Structure formats: C-alpha cells, structure tokens
C-alpha cells in the first residue's frame, strides 16, 4: 500500500473510530432506566444504591382520584401504577398494591394531556421515603388503536342515539 492510501486509511479509521467512541461513551453516560412503578420499587429493594438518588424515568397510569394540584400554584401530586402501553383503562386505587404504585411529586406546569387515566412519563429521582420527585412530566394519550376501539363503541352508541332521534341521513 502506498503512502497516500495509508494516510487515507488512517484518517478514515480515526474519524470512524472517533465517532464510534463518542457514541459509546455518550450512551454510557446518558442512558437512563425506563421503568414501571413495580419495577423501580423492586429494584430499590434489591439494589437501593443504584436507584435512590439516580435519575430514572418512570412510566405509569395516573390512578383515579389521586391527582392533587393546582395549575396556578404548579404544585402537583399524583400516584401512578403499572399499566400495559397498549391497553389503558382508568385504574382505581383499590386495584393497586403498595408494590406497584408510587407517589409522584412535581413542581411545574403539566402538559395539556395530563389527567387521571393517562400514561404519565416522569423523569426524576426516587427518594428513600418512596416518593418520586419528578423534574419533567410528559403525558401520553392511550395508543390510538385502543382509543379508536373505544371510539368505535362510542360512535356506535352515538349512532344508535342519532338513529332513534331521527338525525341520521340515509347511508349512500
């Protein structure tokens, strides 16, 4: 191999290697756990040092009747529990156990989609007292597929009501 080719090869290795190293080290230092309430509680029991005080992401359904807060004062408290991402149903407190629910405290403005029954994704820190202090909160609507299933039922009900009231136009 002549000198020029060697120089080019070295340059390529340096650049590609550099990018690879950059990706690897950045991933190591920025990746965060994304857990359900039950998972983070279990992990806290097994390996407390890894969890308490470490920044993690917790995703769970906001339990009915647990939202306390005020949009003006921006102080919020709510409880989340495990949920399947594809099947969201409003959850009552009685259907949860101390092992799969946690209390989240958040100071800030909540997203418009936030309310009981939605998936709340909070980034923050779990304290030794079991309370999760969130720095950010995102709220996700139930998956549209699930929503559209529910909506089809709603539409069917509405259609039946419309038909009864004589509001329906003839199908084309």
């Amino acid at each position: 191999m002549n000198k020029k080719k060697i120089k080019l090869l070295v340059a390529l290795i340096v650049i590609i290697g550099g990018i690879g190293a950059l990706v690897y080290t950045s991933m190591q230092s920025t990746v965060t756990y994304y857990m359900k309430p039950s998972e983070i509680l279990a992990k806290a029991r097994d390996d407390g040092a890894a969890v308490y005080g470490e920044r993690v992401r917790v995703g769970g359904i906001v339990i009915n009747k647990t939202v306390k807060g005020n949009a003006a004062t921006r102080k919020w408290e709510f409880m989340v529990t495990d949920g399947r991402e594809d099947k969201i149903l409003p959850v009552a407190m009685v259907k949860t156990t101390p092992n799969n629910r946690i209390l989240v405290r958040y100071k800030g403005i909540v997203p418009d989609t936030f309310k009981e029954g939605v998936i709340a994704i909070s980034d923050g820190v779990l304290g030794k007292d079991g309370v999760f202090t969130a720095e950010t909160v995102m709220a996700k609507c139930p998956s549209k597929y699930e929503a559209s299933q529910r909506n089809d039922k709603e539409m069917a009900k509405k259609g039946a009501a419309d038909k009864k009231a004589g509001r329906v136009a003839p199908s084309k």
Partner: protein
Amino acid sequence: MTTIGYFSLLSAAAISAYAWGMSVYGKLVNRKAIIASAERAAVAVGGLLFLSSASLMYAFLTHDFSLEYVANYSDRTLDTIYLISGFWAGNQGSLLMWAVFLSVFTAIVIIQNQHKNRDLMPWVTAILSAFIFFFTTLIITMANPFQKLAFVPADGRGLNPMLHNPGMYLHPPTTYLGYVGFGIPFAFAMAALITGRLSDVWIRSTRRWTLLAWFFLTAGNIVGAWWAYYTLGWGGYWGWDPVENASFMPWLIGTAYLHSVMIQEKKGMLKIWNVSLVVLTFSMTIMGTLITRSGIINSVHTFSNSGLGPYLLFLFLATLAFGFGLLIYRLPLLKTENELDSIISRESTFLFNNLILLGIAFMTLWGTIFPFISEAVRGVKVTVGAPFYDQVAAPLGIALLFLLGLCPLIAWRRASLDNLQRNFLYPLLVSFAGGAVLVAMGIKRPVGALLTAVLIIFVFMTIIIEFYRGTAARRRMTGEGYLTAFTNLIWKNKRRYGGYIIHIGVAMIFLAFVGGPFKQQVEETLTPGQSMNVGNYRIVFERMYQYPQPKQITIAAEMTLYNRYSGKRVGTVTPRKEFFEDNGNGEGNQPWTRVAVRSSTKEDVYFIFSPDDTGKQVAGFKVIINPLMRWMWIAGFVMTFGTIIVIWPDEGEKKRLALIYAREVPSEA
C-alpha cells in the same frame, strides 16, 4: 362518489401490477410496444390514484360522514383548510398520500423520458410500479380510507385541536413529497445497475428530482420544527423523538448523496458509494413510514399500532436487499475512474462531509433503536434522550461546520500550502478576531458554542470571498456594474452560487444552535398586578379574562414586557389556554395551551400560561428566553431560496447535457 374513490384505488393496484410485470417482460423480450403499454399503464395509475384522492378530498369537503375516516377526522365546524388536512390526519389517508405522490411523480418521470433513457426506463417503470402496487394493496387490505360506517352519524368527531395550525397543512405533504421524491433517483440507480449502464447518465437524469426531494424534505423538517415550537408549547423545537429522527436520517443521508454525486460527475469517483447512499436514503424514508405507524418504537406521537408493522418492515428489508444485492452483483463494473490525490483537497472535504453526515445519521439511528435492542436483548427497558444526541451531535456538527467553510475555497486534487494560505489565512484571522471579541464580551462557555460562533464567521467569510472574487472577475471580463455582475454571476452559475446560498442558510441554523446553551427560563405564580423578572425583562401580569368561542372557552392573560434596567416598555403578549367542549369521543374537556412568543433576531421570549382552573384570579407562568431562535426560521427561507436557484433550468447546462446524451446513449435498435 366514494365508490369512484374505492374502485379507482382497486384499479390502480391492478394496473400497477400490470405496469410492473409488462415493463419487465417487454424489456426481456425487447418489444417496444409492450414497454409502451406498460408506460401508459403507469401513467394511468397516476391518474387513477389522483382520482381516488380527489374523491376522498371531496368526501371531506362535503362532510360525507358515511366514511369512517372522514367521521374520525373532521366535523361540520372545521375550516376548509382543515377539512383538506383531514386527508392526511390518519393512517389510511396518509398512506394514500404516499401512493398518490409516488404515482404522480412516476407518471411525470415517464412523460419526461419519452425520448430519453430508453434503455433505463422500463426498469424505472417496473421498480416504481412495484412500490406503488405494494402501497395500494396495503391500503386496500389493511388501511382503507373508504371504509364505510354501518350508519351515518350526524357529525364527525372533529380534528384534534393540536392539529388546528398551519403546521398541519404544511408539514405532512411537504415531508411526504420529500420522502417519495427520493424514490426516483433510487429507481434510476437500480435501473443503471440492472442494465450495466453505469456512466453518469442516471445521475444527471435524476439531479433535479434529487434536489426537489431534498428541497421538500428540508422544508418539511424545518416546518415540522416550527410547528412543534409554536404549537406543542414546551419551548423547544426538536425532541429527538423517534418520529422526528425518522425524518432526519433520510435528510442526512440524502444530503450526503447530493454532495458525493458531484464528485462522481466531476471525477468519476465514489460510484459504489453513491449507489449505496441512494439505496440507504430511500430505504430510510420507508423506515420512517414504518416507525411512524407500527408502534414498534414508542414515541409521544406515533400513529398507532395498526398492524402494518410487519409489512412495512418487509418492504424496508426488501428494498435494502434489492439495492445492495444489485450493487454487489455489479461491483466489477463500478470501477473508479480516478483516485483520491490528497487528503487535503476538495474531494476529500466532500468525503469527510459524507462521513460526518453519515456519522450523525448512524448515531441518530442508534439512539432511536437502542431502547428496542436493550429490551429485546437484555430485557432492560431504557430511554435515550436529548442528552445523548446533543453530546454526540455537537462535536460532529462543529466538524461539519469547519468543512463547510473549507469547501468553497480549497483546491481540487491537492491543496498546496500556498493555496491554503492564500485562501484561508484572512478568513481564519477574522474568525479568531471575532472569537476574541466574544470572549472579551464574556461569552466563553460552553466552549462548543464559542467554537461554533467562530466557525460561523469562518463560513460566512469564505462564502463572501467567493462571491466577491467571482463578481470582481466578471466585472473585469464584461465591464458590468457591481450589482449586475453579482446577479449574473449567480444566474450563470446557479449550481455553484445557489449552493453557497444554501450553505449560508446552514450556517444560520448553526447560529440558532449557538443560542441553545444560553437559554433561560423562569417559572412563577402570579396574581394580576404582580411581575416577574426573566433575562433582561421585567414582565407584568396585567389581567386575566375569558371569552367563549364556538365549541370552546378561552382564558387569556395580558402581559406587558419592560426592559428590566431602563424601564422602557418593550411590548405586550397574550398567551392563552383553550378549553374544549366534550365532543363525545371520550376525551372529556381537554385543554389546549396556546403559547405567546415575542420574537426578534436577538432572542425569543416564550410564554406558557397555566391559569387556575377554579376561577380564581391567579396563574402560573413559565417564561423562556431562547436566544437567536429566529435564525432557524430565517435559515429555512434562505435554504429554500438557494435550492430554487440550484434547481432552476439553465440554458447552458441544457446544451452541455444534450451533447453528453448524444455521445453516451446508444441509439435504439
């Protein structure tokens, strides 16, 4: 009417299969009549899908709620423009949009090439028709927008309030035009590989298509960011969300492709690389479609878990396999005509530019799929957020910016020390002087931002020097006045100087990035009469009031901004929060925050309003100062303007190409 829509969709599927099959057959038995028939069929498919789309559009405009899709995404109160946008609001319609755009582009390509590229065209028609067949069949079997409801509701469910925004009618069609546009150079590249005709004809024939696709994808991405900024109301414009990343990766790879084909045109190098890039670009647009609608990767705005995932994954893998398979098959024919002369040359800056762009695309891909891999392989669920992407993108972006400055002035083949000194000494000195000024002003950290600012000056300098030298040379030759010489310089060298204009736009995007680390934000709870301090401003909460509108109640806050130090009144803003009536879809009374932004080229002051919901006169406010944010949107205009210049037809180029075509393409048997 909708029966027309559905049946034209069915016909399009069948006829595209015909176009696909007959193109291949006609080429194999070398019968012009069959090939011509296939081409006519492909053009007809464009017409049929256009008809089908027009029929769906008509259904929206006439409130035809017998169609489930129309009922789900519109209602009687919608403005016309949002009725139109309902078309692409959901899975079914947006897939139809993909198909109609692709088929119309195909029809245009066929008509454009009636007397050109006769050796390539049957394969181009076949490949594009195959994709159209796939999409139309998918739509018919799994995502039919013409699905009827068992009864006709009196009113539809309406369009999600989040989508009542210009972004809704600008962003999706523009982005889709970008995605679909890259299918054309892809098909030509494949045709070139199949026929073994691997001279640059396929690249030259598709240059404007590539630029057009890039134009739309660039505009689509920037409009998307603008939409996120003004509508989603979290104060940012890019969240590294999988769906955003899905749109960013093809753009990066497409940009790399756009540059490296220039090297192939000039020096006959990088042939294998270029084919690989166009295959990757188009495959990534399919992956984008996959990510958005399959639910494989979770995002705050994926469409749905619609069951389309496996089929789109198949299409993605098939495209990659087909593209790279053909490439490997033709490897012996893709010999480079020239070698790289020196690592310090214009060719090498293009090569390094490609590496960095692909590096950014790779890291974006890695970050997007890593959670998926982590869960599948280790069972550990993780999330990869902005910190990862920012940390990797920053140094790569800086390297790219440096190349941007080098590229206009560095010599071809081998840049001598003399060449480097003559061209770059002055710009570098000015840039460092600028840097010193910034440091003296106290802007030292983060170092990345300072370095970026210095390099932005560098880029502006080298481009200005290029314009100056060109204008001066023209004046010497023609005696024209400065302005005439300048305009003619650009007009007679559209590719080069249009390209420089685009680069100025890119430098402006980096300028917007520079503002990022200097963002400030303050949150407070106020009653009317109280004020808060953010940055250089004192902001007074004057009053809070509400007013009704059709189907909603709006609560608004009037805020006055004053310069905190001089007391001078700067302006007023009115952030709002809208509360919608329960529209019977089980979503209840969902509120919608409407931010207010006071924008100047120096900074944006961004207001998020969170009123008390029990009727008390008190509210929470979040005020964010985003320095230099406006440069992002200015950059959008500059880049699109530059691209229009580059694409614009050029008489001189036409003449040169006619000669090349006459020489290279053999006459038809």
